[in-house]
């Protein structure tokens, strides 16, 4: 069974159609990259998986989005528990104006975990998972704003990991980072793959090539091509894909 599957998905912001008949199936423990020029619908598509688009007024969705075989837009779906299972990392590092510790503990607290020991343990494990522990272990009580941009983004990943999701969505997670921080996050994505299913939106085609197993190319709300990353970048079937990855437009 596929981890994530979308069947005939159409999506509208008011009268304008942002996604046209998207069909994708994603296997567990893989990294899938969504690429395409700005406004092609890749971020919108990503945000379907944790129902983040629900926050926007006046939207319409048809078709099915399945996670572990269950229609997440179906009746009786608890959106909070869905989001607990599907973590998200945003374009700009957005730690809360709280301490480093509380940033990671937040997800645990809002999900009803009160045991101090468990919280401390999970915070530590999560921060270690993103290879940030050595840098912050002595200043956990300090504001997260004191960290550098790259550290903040890794903290945000740790925050997402702490509540033990099985899927992580990343919306251009490195677009605001310097090359060294970017390399660290990419390395992390590669390691996280063993435990999580990752879907990443990126503008950076080298990045898609480096981190992903499969790549989906979106253009004007349509899924143009979805294939093994290697195949897509070396032998694309569609001319538009070819043009985009060779930098002829976008």
């Amino acid at each position, binding site marked *: 069974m596929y981890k994530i599957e979308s069947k005939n998905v159409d999506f509208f912001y008011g009268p304008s159609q942002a996604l046209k008949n998207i069909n994708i199936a994603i296997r567990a423990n893989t990294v899938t990259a969504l690429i395409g020029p700005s406004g092609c619908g890749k971020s919108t598509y990503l945000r379907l998986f*944790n129902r*983040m688009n629900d*926050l926007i*007024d*006046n939207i319409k969705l048809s078709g099915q989005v399945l996670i572990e075989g269950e229609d997440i837009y179906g009746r009786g779906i608890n959106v*909070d*528990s869905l*989001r*607990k299972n599907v*973590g*998200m990392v*945003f374009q*700009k590092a*957005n730690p*809360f*104006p*709280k*301490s480093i510790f*509380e940033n990671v503990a*937040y*997800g645990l607290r*809002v*999900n009803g975990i009160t045991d101090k020991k468990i919280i401390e343990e999970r915070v530590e494990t999560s921060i270690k998972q993103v290879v940030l522990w050595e840098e912050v272990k002595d200043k956990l*009580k*300090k*504001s997260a*704003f004191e960290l550098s941009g790259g550290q903040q983004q890794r903290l*945000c990943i740790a*925050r*997402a990991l702490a*509540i033990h999701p099985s899927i992580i969505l990343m919306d251009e997670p490195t677009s605001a980072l310097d090359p060294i921080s970017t390399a660290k996050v990419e390395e992390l994505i590669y390691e996280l793959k063993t435990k999580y299913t990752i879907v990443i939106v990126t503008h950076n085609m080298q990045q898609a090539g480096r981190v992903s197993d499969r790549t989906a190319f979106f253009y004007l709300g349509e899924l143009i091509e979805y294939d093994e990353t290697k195949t897509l970048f070396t032998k694309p079937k569609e001319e538009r894909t070819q043009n985009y990855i060779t930098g002829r437009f976008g």
Partner: protein
Amino acid sequence: MINEIKITKRKKRSQAIAFWIFRLLSYSIVAILFIILSFIIFKGASVINWNFITQMPEEGMTKGGIYPAIIGTLCLVAGSMIFAFPIGVLAAIYMNEYVKDGIIKRIIKQMTNNLAGIPSIVFGLFGMSLFVNKLHFGDSILAGSLTLGLLALPVVIRTTEEALKAVDNTFRQASLGLGASKWQTTSKVVIPIAFPNIITGLILSIGRVSGETAPILFTVAAYFLPKLPTSIFDQAMALPYHLYVISTSGTNIEASRPIAYGTALVLIIIVLIANLLANGLRKYFGKKVKMN
């Protein structure tokens, strides 16, 4: 080539003129404030001493202090804030965080703006007919506070809304993305971030409320009281009304002129202290928010 130099010169000159006008206007605002303040201080400072702020008025309010008016104003400010602040903040949170864009939100918004546009004397009249007469509170601190509270409500709602709007949406998304409910997101993330700015609303409304005369005219203010109020159902004196009384209908207007300036100065000082206090609170919470 020469033409270009001319154009550049002209551009520079018009820019310089524009900046000078702006500069002049903004300085004149400061100057006006300075003139008013120094006028009041010059006229009023001589009567202000410890007795002035701790004694009852004497001899038909031509001598003595303004203690009961100070106490009255403090009571009214506190009372109106207790009423307006929670309601205003909660209404703004509801409007900004929960209501979707649409007709209902537009109506509430428009009504809030209309409320802000109502002249304060109309609030006074409304307060009299509702709180004083219909609800039988009588001329009382309660009736006056509620009336002033109504007046402050739109200020509180608007500033709170602005404070909430200023909270970056990605904070909300990050919180919801971790499985937090909407209420958890609002109470644990959005409000703490917005809180320092919400305090600004409190400052602004305290300034507004403490100086209002019209709304308390028919609802609480007393011409003269020989003793302090003992409950919220008592009448009270208040600084702005006291100022009005001794300047227009006192027993001896000329003799009480210095007291009038003293009263004005005290009123200004109270507003200033409230502002400073609220500013301190805002800074304190601003720091705390980052740390917690």
